[in-house]
């Protein structure tokens, strides 16, 4: 199935869980936070969160930040 991760489309196995996605991406779960389809997913739920076709995943990390950023 296809999902979008941080704005990029990727093909991944059907029924993939969030912790597996991070593993595939070689991304440790420390130091990042995740939202799926604009909903926050806490770390404790990664294991049980199964992704579906067309899901949108955001994986974010800290950055210097001031006021706002337009896009």
């Amino acid at each position, binding site marked *: 199935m296809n999902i979008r991760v941080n704005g990029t489309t990727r093909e991944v196995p059907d029924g993939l869980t969030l912790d597996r996605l991070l593993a595939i991406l*070689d991304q440790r779960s420390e130091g990042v*936070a995740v939202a799926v389809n604009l909903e926050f997913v806490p770390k404790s739920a990664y294991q049980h969160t199964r992704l579906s076709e067309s899901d949108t995943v955001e994986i974010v*990390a800290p950055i210097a*930040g*001031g*006021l*706002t950023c337009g896009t």
Partner: protein
Amino acid sequence: MWNLGDQEIDSRLLTGTALFPSPEIMADAIEASGSRVATVALRRQAPGERSGEAFWSLIRELGVHVLPNTAGCKSVKEAVATANMARELFGTRWIKLEVIGDDYTLQPDTTALVEAARVLVADGFEVFPYTTEDLIVAQRLVDAGCRIVMPWGSPIGSGRGLMNPYLLKTLRNRLPDVTLIVDAGIGRPSDAARAMELGYDGVLINSAIALADDPVGMARAFRAAVEAGRLGFEAGAMDPRETATPSTPTLGTPFWHGQDA
């Protein structure tokens, strides 16, 4: 010492961490500023990248309170998700809530802001909403449970200072019990002093420090300016007058042209 949310802190200057020439200069500037609160943000993690951790370590070493923001969010939903991610990542329930309504002026969308504030307060966040000087919106934010309201001085990064001191003063007068912080547009130390003289509880500065020729020196300047403005507010400044008034007493002036005294 004053209370910002549930924290007691000793500086009324809040600083941003962006736009500095280097992380080291950022750290030195924040230290020089005396600030106890630094804003941070989130960005998409590129696979394998680690710079986020380095940044986060640096901030932790500074020992300041971290104030994550929802920079770049344009809807209630984005802002709420971002706030939750920030809470997990930074381990704080503080959130600087930005919901931007216009890409050019980076102006807050005040309707969405109030809605997002309501959701986040209910979810246990201490919300620092970035808003305009609109009194009605500020009142709604307070009604939504915000103890802190952060009106702009002028558009973000414009360095234009306080565009509308009259309405900022009105806001202060009408919301005496709310923590009010000027959050954007301050360009010069005198702007920050002015905001504090109006009775604001604090100011948040980023560009004006980070983009100065000497950010560390400018951090010191803003530290002194915020202190100056606060002391001035507390000491009760004189009002401007229409006419000149001598400060040397006139009685007994030598060479007084006059009648026998």
